[in-house]
């Protein structure tokens, strides 16, 4: 069944001829790890609700340079974000495009360096790009397949005023496997806002297998927003965050569209005073499957976490949320709260949610809640009684429901786009 995948793994080995020895080694290790445990199926607890058989059966190609062309027009219409005042970083098929990106060379800009440049100038920093190795198949697959990797650093004590818009585009002909890899280093006491967007311009089944690593050093503040909203294709996203002393990380995930979307978010609060805020929103209108798995590890005392995920499922869509909060042994004063609220708007849609707590210390205050329901009949009636048509009334209520998760987003244009999707949909 997974022979196509195995073939692509073989293909990848021949592509990496010009790479330095350490990188080849790293990739081989990753492939070995994949082979030892194999690709997940629905028999795997973590993938219980998310079948990937279709993509395993698809013949995927690794993009070549010829695929990586894109006109400015297509580029502009591809993104949901169209605010002018942003730093722009564009990756096409996972490869950094200096020409299309828009970064002023001022002191306030982030430091952006792709893999090739680093291998040439700073081999140690290049190794750092592949140093994280989460024990997860698709992260390994990314390590094995990522042709490029991007290091974004924010120097110590610096605040980057404008949000950074990181646009990942998958394009070309035929079905592809694209593996963007981004490493974000927020040095001590720095501040930055990042909007990471994933767009699939390929009509058919393709797989975007993204890996993003965020390292929030002491006292830093990272605002991260992740948007995956393509009309088709498979999307697997891995986000790994490490949060140091007194650092804060806010991360929002916005997911809609696509055939199957699976996003793994892992935040490790490593030192005292670290905190994180996770919010998410997933929206299904046709037959999408959108799956979020989040893990928050409290590995130090005095750490806080807060999580709110909202799902709205209409049509024949399927939503999955699995949120895990883990408190390690012998730590104190931990606060964690987690919420999963879901609206089910069609009789053929489906929601599976599992807010988990795994707690090994006693000095904690943890709470979680989950709800699944439909729009409140009383509220709809209230609006209808004031002459608002049913469809509009429902939309107002859905918008209100989503507001909590959307309010974090620094760009208005995305909200507007999202509302358009909601109003166009028949089932919402």
């Amino acid at each position, binding site marked *: 069944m997974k022979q196509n995948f195995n073939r692509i793994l073989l293909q990848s080995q021949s592509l990496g001829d010009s790479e330095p020895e350490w990188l080849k080694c790293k990739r081989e290790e990753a492939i070995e790890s994949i082979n030892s445990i194999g690709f997940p199926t629905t028999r795997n607890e973590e993938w219980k609700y998310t079948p990937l058989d279709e993509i395993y059966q698809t013949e995927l190609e690794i993009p070549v340079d010829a695929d990586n062309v894109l006109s400015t027009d297509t580029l502009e219409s591809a993104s949901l974000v169209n605010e002018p005042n942003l730093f722009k970083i564009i990756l096409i098929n996972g490869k950094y495009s200096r020409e299309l990106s828009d970064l002023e060379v001022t002191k306030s800009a982030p430091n952006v360096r792709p893999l090739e440049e680093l291998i040439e100038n700073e081999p140690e920093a290049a190794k750092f790009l592949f140093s994280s190795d989460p024990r997860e198949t698709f992260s390994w697959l990314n390590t094995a397949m990522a042709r490029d990797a991007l290091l974004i650093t924010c120097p110590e004590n610096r605040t980057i005023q404008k949000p950074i818009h990181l646009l990942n585009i998958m394009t070309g002909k035929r079905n592809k496997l694209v593996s963007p890899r981004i490493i974000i280093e927020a040095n001590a006491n720095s501040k930055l806002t990042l909007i990471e967007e994933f767009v699939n311009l390929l009509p058919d089944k393709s797989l975007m297998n993204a890996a993003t690593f965020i390292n929030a050093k002491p006292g830093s503040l990272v605002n991260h927003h992740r948007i995956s909203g393509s009309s088709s294709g498979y999307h697997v996203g891995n986000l790994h965050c490490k949060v140091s002393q007194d650092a804060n990380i806010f991360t929002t995930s916005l997911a809609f569209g696509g055939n199957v979307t699976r996003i793994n978010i892992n935040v490790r609060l490593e030192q005292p005073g670290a905190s994180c805020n996770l919010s998410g929103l997933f929206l299904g209108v046709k037959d999408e499957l959108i799956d979020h798995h989040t893990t928050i590890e409290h590995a130090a005392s005095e750490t806080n976490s807060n999580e709110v995920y909202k799902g709205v499922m209409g049509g024949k869509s399927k939503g999955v949320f699995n949120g895990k909060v883990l408190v390690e042994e012998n730590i104190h004063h931990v606060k964690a709260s987690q919420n999963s609220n879901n609206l089910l*708007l069609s009789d053929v*849609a489906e*929601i599976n949610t*599992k807010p988990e*707590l795994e707690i090994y210390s*006693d000095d904690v205050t*943890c709470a979680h809640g*989950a709800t699944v329901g*439909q729009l409140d009949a009383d509220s709809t009636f209230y609006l209808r009684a004031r002459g608002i048509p049913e469809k509009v009334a429902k939309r107002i209520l859905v918008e209100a429901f989503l507001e909590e998760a959307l309010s974090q987003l620094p760009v208005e244009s995305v909200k507007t786009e999202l509302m358009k999707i909601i109003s166009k949909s028949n089932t919402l």
Partner: protein
Amino acid sequence: MSTQTEKLNSIVSKNYEAGFYTDVEQDSLPPGLNIETIKAISRKKREPNWLLDWRLDAYDKFKKMQEPQWAHVKYDPINIQDISYYSAPKNDSEKPKSLEEVDPKIIETYEKLGIPLEEQKMLAGVAVDVVFDSVSVHTTFKEKLAEAGVLFCSFSEAVLEYPEIVRKYLGSVVPSRDNYFTALNSAVFSDGSFAYIPENTKCPMELSTYFRINAMNTGQFERTLVVADRGSYVSYLEGCTAPRRDENQLHAAVVELIALDDAEIKYSTVQNWYPGDENGVGGIYNFVTKRGDCRGKNSKISWTQVETGSAVTWKYPSCILRGENSSGEFYSVALTNNKQQADTGTKMVHLGKGTTSTIISKGISAGSSQNSYRGLVRIARTAEGARNFTQCDSLLLGNRSAAHTFPYIECKNSSAQLEHEASTSKISEEQLFYLRSRGIPQEDAVNLIVNGFCKEVFKELPLEFAVEAQKLLGISLEGAVG
């Protein structure tokens, strides 16, 4: 006679000794599990052929299955060939002659629970005189039940006397292939309880295995079947608050409840098997499959459990809400101390229209124990207007204890409404200080708070159980705080 023939003869006679082909009454079968063991059990119980076939079929399935690994518990692997699958109740000569011969620790617990002397003897397995009080209790309650038409007897009795009811319902809620331990139980179950409540009958008393003397030694593979016919009501109590003297390591019981139209079953359990010592040596593995089927319209099944014993617990009393407007309830207190591990919770499977379920689970973990709540609420596409409310709270005592929550929510119907809330925290310092400053000793203060924490569940228990359960909690928590 040549040596060879001698050898042959000895082998033949040995085989005979093992007793597979003999009618001589034996107390137990040698350890090991194979088709012959199952046939022997069936023969000893003089079972009809259909039941033997059913057992063999279950054994067939069992052979192909593997022990589940997903629970959040760790224990040494069980060797199913080391277990003796049948042992008849011990006769009087082997039982302790008086209470003096019983482990003083157990007696101490009885006294704390306030159990009368004669009952203590019975619980400790002391050989009792025939004129002992409870025998008369036994007969009076039998008469009362017979008057109402309620059938209540041991499982083996039921197989012989009411085969058509047993055959109709056995395995219809928990099929033998359900999981590894149900398959094992279905193949080798030794005895258990059976109750049938006829149409429109309210069972005149609470059915309790506690009263049923012959059920005191049902062995490790129990099987319980309770059928509530249309419009009937029964409250069934399982187990008792006193610790049971038991050397069996693995307990793989199966409980099946069936509620037809407008029937209600209330099933309460207090489980207090031997939990092992402070270092986690010994103790019972309690791997139980309990499931109720609300087959009829407006039927109701309610599970209430207080779990304080066993070294490892793996137990999920569930409700299949098939009938329209049927409802399921689950109230649970699970306490773990020392090295105990519990992975327990419930499953509510909503199939019918307008079905409702409530889950209240309270986990208390002390010492270095592991306490997990694992629950599933599934709303099928057909379950229009289904409603669920779940609350699971955990209380942590001591910084080596652990509490986990794994609630699965699967919803396929848009008119369903589900709510789940959970919290985990330790005993609040302020509450403790408040009580301590009023002169209440530390241990009593903790007891008071823990009892308050569990109140919602205790109020669901039948009165006499509730009182004992509160005391039991106190005893189980001894040494956990300080």
